């Protein structure tokens, strides 16, 4: 690759690449507002000024150049830190602050605001503007985001977003000159499903998420990488939380999955993560027909005792799971059946799902499969739904032990009715539901945000999540429950961490071969052996 120099350091670039994008890739920060790698270059904020001391032909550029609009060239030398550049940035920042309300104390962007950061870095600290500031006022532009136009610096990112990313064109720039401002057309509220991204890309506090407004100052938030579990796309996110409460999900860049974006529906899944009321707080056992709180040891002991008494045949053991479970949990459940009971009756619902096809990438982020790990279940060869003869046959006969992970077949009352007859129903889950109603032993699991795990998305890409918040005190992650359970049932060998389970899985399961937990890194890795049919039905996105 050809090379140019930024502040004396060599930087590689692809032909036709802009200075700023090559610089950002190499970790060189050039301040900017209007530039966004996912959208067209407008070069209007004028903040990314750099001094080109050699254009590559030995001559300097006559004046400061914007790094976002200038192509890098072989042998080019640019300076980003000299006096001239600093002066240039200083004056641009002064102009931007001339009409900015400086209401940082009540602005939600404060703390992650580009204008604030650069004003600290380049601003003079005093204003020479002694006239009244421009007032454009706030506008109600829809349910998801709030627009406070006084704070706007007219970078036009939001305008370009609806034009180039969602293609919905409902947002635009109005008036001209000093009065230039943003709004929706004809006072209509916005309708696109990705409005939260406008709050993300807004470099100032003009567009903020209504969900997050006035909830918490951003510098108090701690951040953990995770994935969105709202659907099978598995958008990369950061979970932002404070004092064990999750406040928002923000998309994290992953060019192979979600680029920079995520949908509003996915953002709202943070609410479920804070849900406490309907959660199962401790292990429960059925005593005289009623569920009562018991200790973990008692729960495992009771299961082991009952299983020992029954000594069931392989066809008398059944496991049901949903595809909210992580790869490790599915693997361990399958392993438990196989190791302890030599059984293979493990089923999960796998309906066909719809993938949108669209001219705009962002529309393909939403799928109709609202579970995060359908492809993982496929890779682990867990199949079937109520329609398959195998499940029907399995529940026709006499069942002694049934394991239920999560909330599968929740609407299939027939299945639930039949499984009631089983002598031992063990439910691993988070919430009270129809399965916990009929279970003999209930083992409380943990939510995505509380445990580690890997999930396989619709493109069969395996991605890992981090622990973001502390779980309920007397719950345990499902992978731990399953490994402890198999130990209680007489299996030797014990997993102590998710990476250990994952690496065992990649050893034993063909689809995962060649992967290791460490190799997933920040952006995940695709399965080495992909399933050909994932039940996907491609449909045209409605616009």
């Amino acid at each position, binding site marked *: 690759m050809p090379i140019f120099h930024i502040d004396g350091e060599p930087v590689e670039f692809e032909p036709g690449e802009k200075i700023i994008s090559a610089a950002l890739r190499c970790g060189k920060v050039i301040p900017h507002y209007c530039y966004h790698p996912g959208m067209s*270059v*407008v*070069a*209007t*904020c*004028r*903040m990314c*000024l750099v001094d080109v001391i050699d254009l590559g032909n030995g001559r300097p550029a006559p*004046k*400061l150049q914007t790094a976002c*609009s200038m*192509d890098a060239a072989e042998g080019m030398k640019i300076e980003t830190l000299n006096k001239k550049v600093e002066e*240039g940035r200083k*004056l*641009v920042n*002064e*102009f*931007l602050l*001339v*009409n900015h309300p400086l209401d940082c104390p009540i602005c939600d962007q404060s703390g992650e605001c580009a204008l604030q950061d650069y004003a600290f870095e380049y601003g003079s600290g005093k204003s*020479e*503007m002694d*006239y009244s500031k421009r007032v454009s006022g706030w506008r109600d532009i829809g349910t998801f985001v709030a627009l406070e136009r006084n704070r706007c*610096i*007219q970078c*036009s990112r939001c305008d370009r977003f609806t034009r180039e990313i969602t293609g919905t064109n409902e947002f635009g*720039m109005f*008036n*001209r*000159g*000093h*009065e*230039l401002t943003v709004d929706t057309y004809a006072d209509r509220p916005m309708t696109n499903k990705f409005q939260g991204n406008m709050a993300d890309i807004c470099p100032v506090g003009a567009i903020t998420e209504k969900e997050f407004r006035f909830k918490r100052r951003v510098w108090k938030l701690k951040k953990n990488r995770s994935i969105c579990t709202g659907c099978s796309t598995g958008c990369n996110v950061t979970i932002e939380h404070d004092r064990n409460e999750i406040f928002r999900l923000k998309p994290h860049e992953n060019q192979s999955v979600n680029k920079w974006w995520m949908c509003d529906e996915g953002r709202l899944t943070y609410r479920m993560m804070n849900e406490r009321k309907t959660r199962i707080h401790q292990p429960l056992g059925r005593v005289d027909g009623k569920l009562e709180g018991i200790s973990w040891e008692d729960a495992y002991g009771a299961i082991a005792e009952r299983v020992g008494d029954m000594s069931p045949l392989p066809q008398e053991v059944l496991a049901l799971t949903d595809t909210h479970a992580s790869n490790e949990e599915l693997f361990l459940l399958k392993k438990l059946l196989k190791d302890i009971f030599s059984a293979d009756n493990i089923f999960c619902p796998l309906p066909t799902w719809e993938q949108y096809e669209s001219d705009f990438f962002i529309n393909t982020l939403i799928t109709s499969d609202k579970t995060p790990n359908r492809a993982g279940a496929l890779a682990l060869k867990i199949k079937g739904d109520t329609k398959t003869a195998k499940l029907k046959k399995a529940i026709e006969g006499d069942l002694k032990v049934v394991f239920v992970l999560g909330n599968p077949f929740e609407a299939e009352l027939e299945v639930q009715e039949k499984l009631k007859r089983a002598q031992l129903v063990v439910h691993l889950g988070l919430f009270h539901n129809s399965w916990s109603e009929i279970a003999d032993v209930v083992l409380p699991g943990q939510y995505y945000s509380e445990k580690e795990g890997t999930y396989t998305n619709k493109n069969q890409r395996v991605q890992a999540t981090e622990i973001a918040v502390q779980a309920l005190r007397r719950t345990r992650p499902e992978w731990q429950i399953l490994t402890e359970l198999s130990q209680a049932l007489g299996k030797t060998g014990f997993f102590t961490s998710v990476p250990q389970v994952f690496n065992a899985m990649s050893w034993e399961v063909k689809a995962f071969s060649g992967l290791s937990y460490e190799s997933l890194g920040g952006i995940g890795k695709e399965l080495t052996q992909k399933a050909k049919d994932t039940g996907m039905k491609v449909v045209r996105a409605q616009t």
Partner: protein
Amino acid sequence: MLEETLVLFKNIRNPDYDKSLAAYKKSGGYKSLKKVFAMKPEDVVQEVKESGIRGRGGAGFPTGLKWSFMAKGTGKPSYLVANADESEPGTCKDRELMLKDPHLFLEGMLIGCYAIGCHHGYIYVRGEFFPSIKILNDAVDELYVDGLLGPDPLGSGFNLDLTIHTGAGAYICGEESALLDSLEGKRGQPRVKPPFPAVSGFNGCPTSVNNVETLACMPFILSDGGVDAFKSFGPQNNSGTHLVSLSGHVNRPGVYELRMDVNMKDIIYDIGGGILNGKKLKGVIPGGSSSPVMKADEIDVLYNFDDLAKVGTMMGSAAIMVFDEDTDIVKLLHRITRFYAHESCGQCTPCREGTQWSKQIVRDFLSGNGSDEKLKRLDRVGGNMLGTSLCALGDAAAMPIQSFINKFPEDFRKYYATA
């Protein structure tokens, strides 16, 4: 006595000329076009290059060079767009041409289209030019009836259509890339360059945007012996005659066609008949409101691109605005800053905020709130706009501010010293 050199105004200065197609043809019109159709397009561009004509819209970029930059072999159509959005304050030359001799301009347009291989030309006319729009439309109709437009004019096998598009009243749409955005039906805002229009212009196709006067020179340049004659009208690199819009405190304001080796002093005192009411000259804005102002003792200079650039100003669109000794400089600057604050498109920071802020500071002087500090601040705000904005409007707004303060500081001080 200094006299006009009649090339573009040859017909207009003829009192019997009625601007119809018949009259234009009678005076020798569309002969150059016939000659051009017999040439290869590359040769036409070469001749234009040799004539040394520089764009008359303000920037003075060599037209032949511009045409030779047009991307070839892209598989996309090429476009020629005539910039008739004449809106630089003080300029009124294109309007004269369109009102009084539309066919001269249209013949130039046809030649330009042939030279760059454009089969659909656009004329972007300033929205307020209602009579010009009507006259141009009538003239284009005449050409279609005559067969000079449409399929196969003069048996050349070259198809050409012309569309007249009216602007919506924005000064910025005179900037070529903003003009193209407006023509495409978008907000008129300057684009990032590169890519230049010659590579990606109207609808992403190679496009050349040329001023009306530039195109009107083409019939003469491409007539027999036109190149040499054209070159003889001025010093090197400043060839041809050009239209000078003379306005302000002179006895005979108007549009005059002059050679490029004429002294500006003679333009004002000879052609313009001296200062109105026998007063003394205070200063001159030599090339439209964007150009730096000149003081009375600086005007002894040849009026062309290079000589004006040498003394630190510019010829721009060749609009001389003269003001006498009683002119209030601060009020004049206030008028100019108001114009730019109103006309800034607002997309880029220095221009959006700077034009408004400088207007407010100048207004402070008028209301008696001036001070040394504010004068310094005005100079600084103007300077900060210079060279930092996306298009030339920021520079255009900054140059008068700085030059007014620089050349007439006493006029500003007068406002707050007495108050």
